[in-house]
């Protein structure tokens, strides 16, 4: 009998715990080495780019640093103005001193050939200001005191308080203004946060539309996929294989081909409209508008995302033994009760997985809405792409993307709270 109070030891008297640790350390090191390549891959391809994106959404040096593309030299710009902003609180009327600082900075911009860059940065917040910078920089050398009058002579918009607020915001590399812009907010001349004018409010509307359309698409795929998955799981293998091929067929076809084939079907001179008109259900002059609007986006995306709902549902349903429903029936349940109380609850993990998958894919979908969405069916990802490719306002694109990411994470958290992530069955 060993004394219970004494720590257990191995045969040669060493503490058992330590021996166990040593014995397991080797196995743990091996396991770690095995996953190391994957870990590195994820870090390089996933964590690092997303980190970069998040950084870009709060950091923009367009109005603070200039980098010479050939030599790589970095020069600070707009330093005088930044100093004035530091010394004076937001809402201070720009005085002669402020205009003098601006004039000095414009000279520097001219020497560095950087007025375009600085102007673009301000242009993000106040359109039309880029040309003011290029124009003023051209004549920067000829500016004489009093600078306020000289600059206002050049362009009276130099006195616009919004412009000064925009320059104040941009004078620091780190800013939250892109996030404000992404939710249709801006700072007024006093520095307090206000809504942007009605005609420029787009992002909140687009976020809401993306959210509602994604929820609608998720719901539609669920309604369509549930019976299909059930058939797949219960049909004899011979038939279910054929059905499975039909479900997977869209996967093997290019996304572009699938989307364009929907265009062929849905456009106003398309197959569906022709058929309806041909059957006399529709007059030739009021053909249905199913393309280049929300309807087109919803129909095409529901079709394209359907397999992502079918597969998790199928994998869960296949594992449900038919004897559960039989047991329920023998215990006195009608087939509807047996479905509602026995079968359906057991498919919830599949529904959760499918819904999460479809929703997350839908929220970030790009090609289909771009092709069939028209103006009305655009989603937030189309706007992110616009800012990346056309307006080149990467910081705003990054802020929008970060909000999207945050929203998805929030939903994921909500899902975990409500359903439990352990219940997720992806295959």
């Amino acid at each position, binding site marked *: 009998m060993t004394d219970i109070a004494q720590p257990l030891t191995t045969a040669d008297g060493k503490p058992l715990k330590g021996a166990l640790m040593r014995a397991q350390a080797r196995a743990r090191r091996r396991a770690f080495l095995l996953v190391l390549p994957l870990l590195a891959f994820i870090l390089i391809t996933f964590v690092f780019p997303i980190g970069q994106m998040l950084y870009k959404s709060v950091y923009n040096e367009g109005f603070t640093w200039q980098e010479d593309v050939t030599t790589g030299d970095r020069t600070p710009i707009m330093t005088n103005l930044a100093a004035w902003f530091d010394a004076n609180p937001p809402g201070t009327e720009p005085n002669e001193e402020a205009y003098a600082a601006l004039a000095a900075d414009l000279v520097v911009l001219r020497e560095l050939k950087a007025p375009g860059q600085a102007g673009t940065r301000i242009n993000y917040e106040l359109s039309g200001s880029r040309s003011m910078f290029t124009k003023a920089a051209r004549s920067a050398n000829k500016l004489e005191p009093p600078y306020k009058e000289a600059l206002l002579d050049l362009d009276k918009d130099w006195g616009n308080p919004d412009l000064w607020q925009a320059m104040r915001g941009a004078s620091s590399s780190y800013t939250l203004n892109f996030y404000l812009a992404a939710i249709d907010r801006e700072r007024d001349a006093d520095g307090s946060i206000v809504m942007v004018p009605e005609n420029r409010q787009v992002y909140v509307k687009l976020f809401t539309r993306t959210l509602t359309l994604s929820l609608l698409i998720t719901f539609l795929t669920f309604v369509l996929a549930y019976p299909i998955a059930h058939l797949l799981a219960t049909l004899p293998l011979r038939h279910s294989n054929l059905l499975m091929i039909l479900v997977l067929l869209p996967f093997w076809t290019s996304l572009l081909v699938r989307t364009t084939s929907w265009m062929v079907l849905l456009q106003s001179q398309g197959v569906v409209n022709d058929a309806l008109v041909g059957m006399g259900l529709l007059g030739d002059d009021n053909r249905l508008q199913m393309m280049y609007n929300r309807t087109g986006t919803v129909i095409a995306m529901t079709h394209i995302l359907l397999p992502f709902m079918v597969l998790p549902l199928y994998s869960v349903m296949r594992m449900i*033994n038919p*004897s559960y429903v*039989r*047991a329920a*029936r*023998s*215990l*006195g349940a*009608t087939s509807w009760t047996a479905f509602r109380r*026995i079968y359906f609850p057991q498919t919830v993990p599949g529904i959760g997985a499918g819904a999460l998958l479809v929703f997350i894919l839908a929220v970030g979908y790009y090609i289909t809405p771009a092709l069939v969405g028209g103006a009305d069916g655009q989603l937030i990802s189309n706007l992110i792409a616009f800012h990346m490719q056309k307006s080149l306002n990467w910081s705003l694109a990054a802020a929008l993307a970060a909000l999207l990411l945050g929203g998805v994470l929030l939903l994921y958290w909500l899902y975990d709270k409500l359903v439990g992530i352990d219940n997720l069955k992806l295959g």
Partner: protein
Amino acid sequence: MTTRASNDAFVEFERVQKSYDGETLVVKDLNLTMPKGQFLTMLGPSGSGKTTCLMMLAGFETATHGEIKLDGRPINNIPPHKRGIGMVFQNYALFPHMTIAENLAFPLEVRKIGKSDREEKIKRALDMVEMGRFGGRRPAQLSGGQQQRVALARALVFEPELVLMDEPLGALDKQLREKMQFEITRLAHDLGITVVYVTHDQTEALTMSDRVAVFNDGVIQQLAPPDELYEQPANSFVAQFIGENNTLEGEVMEVRDGIAVVRLDDGELIDCKPVNVSKPGERTRVSIRPERVEFNKSRLKPGAHTLKAEVMEFIYMGDIFRTRLKVAGNDEFIIKTRNAPDQVRLEPGAQIEIGWLPEDCRALDA
């Protein structure tokens, strides 16, 4: 064991046939009546149609031909949930997303039984199978034997008159199985329910049932109480399938006064009880139980036929001795003797003479 209740037919299969594919009959012309309160076991090799019969009774399969009656009413067109038959499935089929108590509440809820009534019935049913403490657990948190008991309690909680069980003990180890066999028979007796039980374990069938229906190839080969089944098998399939059996092949020489004289293939003559032979010249298989074979001359009736045998192997099994002999060209002939103080242990190679009572030796179909 004897039949417990009256002989009115409670469950009735009338000329029932079943085919799944329209080509082969899985159940061929099944006729069976069982009175209320009886414990009937369907026993048979794999694929002989036992589950199919049970499923037709429960309403999950329809009979291709014939009629099934419950308490005098034809039930072919009654859906499963209106038949009021309790069922225990082979894999228990406890609902994994519900606790044990919720599982038991399910049949009561769908019958719209009030909450207080429900709770009382659940408690009674769980106590009955000694699972009262486990009401709050999930099926996955129970051992196989415990799940089995819950499945039993769930099939009984709504007080059905007929309970079907499809190999309910198949997944349990031997000891637990024996315990549960006892508990199921006790419950069935105490509650007076009618049970149709499916198994392919013959010991289980013999120890539990009032009557056993031996299935083979979609046909009931024999329907009889266990003792009759063992001692008086109706054909050579039953003789082979139930218990250990010795078979000798031969030809009937004459049938007279309830005795058939059979000439074995090596020329020796023996006396048998004719079961399904009637006239000389028929081929027959003679069946003798190992424990009915005697090699001690003094214990045999005078004038009994004896056969020469050579001892091949002696196996000590504790309570009994099992000896393998070569008899009439068959070297798989087994005899069993009790391990008593005066019992002889046969040495391999020894030449002995064996015999038996004519009524223990049954001439069956070839």
